[in-house]
């Protein structure tokens, strides 16, 4: 099954000054996996995700993606990042560009897609998340939920191998969480490989095929959602779940 692995993480470490945030994490993310990373705040889960596309530069360890070690100095990060979509807690849409321009910027600039083709593809994807009529609007005119759906589409426009979600619903008003999770669910069903840092335990249980519990910079427990949620082994996970469920 070696050729099915999309990302291999080996002994990943990250320090912020004296503070050891990640203390050696190993993980294989396979094609079609939907991995949910859960854990208390400060457990390192966001840092872990941000290391996967090198937004945080790890202190040690390897991240293997597309036959390259992303932690190496010689690797062309920009090229590999095109294949790793990322969705942020704060959406981070480009406020000075229309929704359509937000979506077509990277494909036109980096993949040299002609404008017409990039727009056609962007509009088709917008249609899928029910926002085709907002193409000419600016991000400031959209609700949080709509912004996040656009942010997901922006990443999808680059046709990534894997999508990274950094607490995608944490900044949303409660009534908008559902619409974003719905889009993510559809994405998972379509076979997208996803790594999701989330507090949405319902989503983790229902959609993911693997849940990873990070505690104090290490993988404290991992397994299928049923095992994690219904039969947690380690004490820290039991206490974490008792607080969030």
């Amino acid at each position, binding site marked *: 099954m070696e050729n099915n692995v999309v990302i291999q993480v080996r002994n990943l470490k990250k320090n912020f000054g004296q503070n050891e945030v990640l203390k050696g994490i190993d993980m294989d993310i396979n094609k079609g996996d939907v991995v949910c990373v859960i854990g208390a705040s400060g457990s390192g889960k966001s840092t872990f995700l941000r290391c996967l*596309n090198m*937004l945080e530069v790890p202190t040690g360890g390897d991240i293997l993606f597309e036959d390259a070690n992303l932690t190496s100095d010689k690797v062309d990060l*920009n*090229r*590999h*990042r*095109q294949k*790793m*979509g*990322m969705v*942020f807690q*704060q959406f*981070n*849409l*480009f*406020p*000075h560009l229309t929704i359509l321009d937000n979506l077509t*910027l*990277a494909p036109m*600039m*980096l993949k040299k897609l002609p404008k017409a083709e990039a727009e056609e593809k962007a509009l088709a994807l917008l249609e899928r998340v029910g926002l085709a009529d907002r193409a000419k609007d*600016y991000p*400031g*005119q959209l609700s949080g939920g709509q912004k996040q759906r656009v*942010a997901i589409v*922006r*990443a999808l426009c*680059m046709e990534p191998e894997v999508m990274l979600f950094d607490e995608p619903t944490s900044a949303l008003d409660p009534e908008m969480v559902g619409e974003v999770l719905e889009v993510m669910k559809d994405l998972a069903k379509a076979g997208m490989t996803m790594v999701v840092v989330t507090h949405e335990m319902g989503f983790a249980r229902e959609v993911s095929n693997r849940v990873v519990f990070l505690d104090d910079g290490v993988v404290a427990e991992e397994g299928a959602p049923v095992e994690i949620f219904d039969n947690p082994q380690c004490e820290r996970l039991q206490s974490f779940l008792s607080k969030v469920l």
Partner: protein
Amino acid sequence: MSWFDKLAETFLEDNRYMWMVEGLGNTLLITIGALAIGVVIGTLIAVAKYFSEDNKKLRLLNWVCDVYTTVIRGIPMTVLLLLFFFVIFASARDGIPVAIAAFGINSGAYMAELIRSGINAVDKGQMEAARSLGLSRGQAMVKIIMPQAVKYILPAIGNELIALLKETSVAGYVAVVDITKAATNIRNKTYDAVNPIILLALVYLVMVVALTRLLAILERRLRKSDGK
């Protein structure tokens, strides 16, 4: 002799008001030339500092930028101008290009800070989002960060422009006939010590008020575009 006769004698005889007009031309030429140089230098330094701060390989570049801003900001403008004219470009005949260079290089050090704080005012998630899509830092700077930083930077550059306009009044130190020097020349010629200076002050005041108004309009426009 009435005040009006005095005014006529001072400014109209020998078309001396034209001295003021020509001086004003030089003042504006130096101001605009220096502004252009300042914006270019300021942008280069701000971007260089942005990229070099967290990159050990560019430590030298960071150091050069720091030295430049420290030296320039530590020397009074008049002294800098004298240095340029009598030391660095000692063979220069025409003071205007030297003045443009001196004011521009001076202004660049201040602009660098303005532009840098404009760049820093853009949410850092913007750079991260651009990088996560695969844009290089340079591409992200040009397409994502700068277009957003401009609305913070433009009003500050407007204020710098006003300061610069007034600062050029020391250009007369290096044989440049700007409007201040022209007024002095008229005083020396006519022994009218009062009116040329009052007119001079009024001309600066009108220009500054006009620029301030323009700036306020610009800021309002920028804020409006924020709403969308």
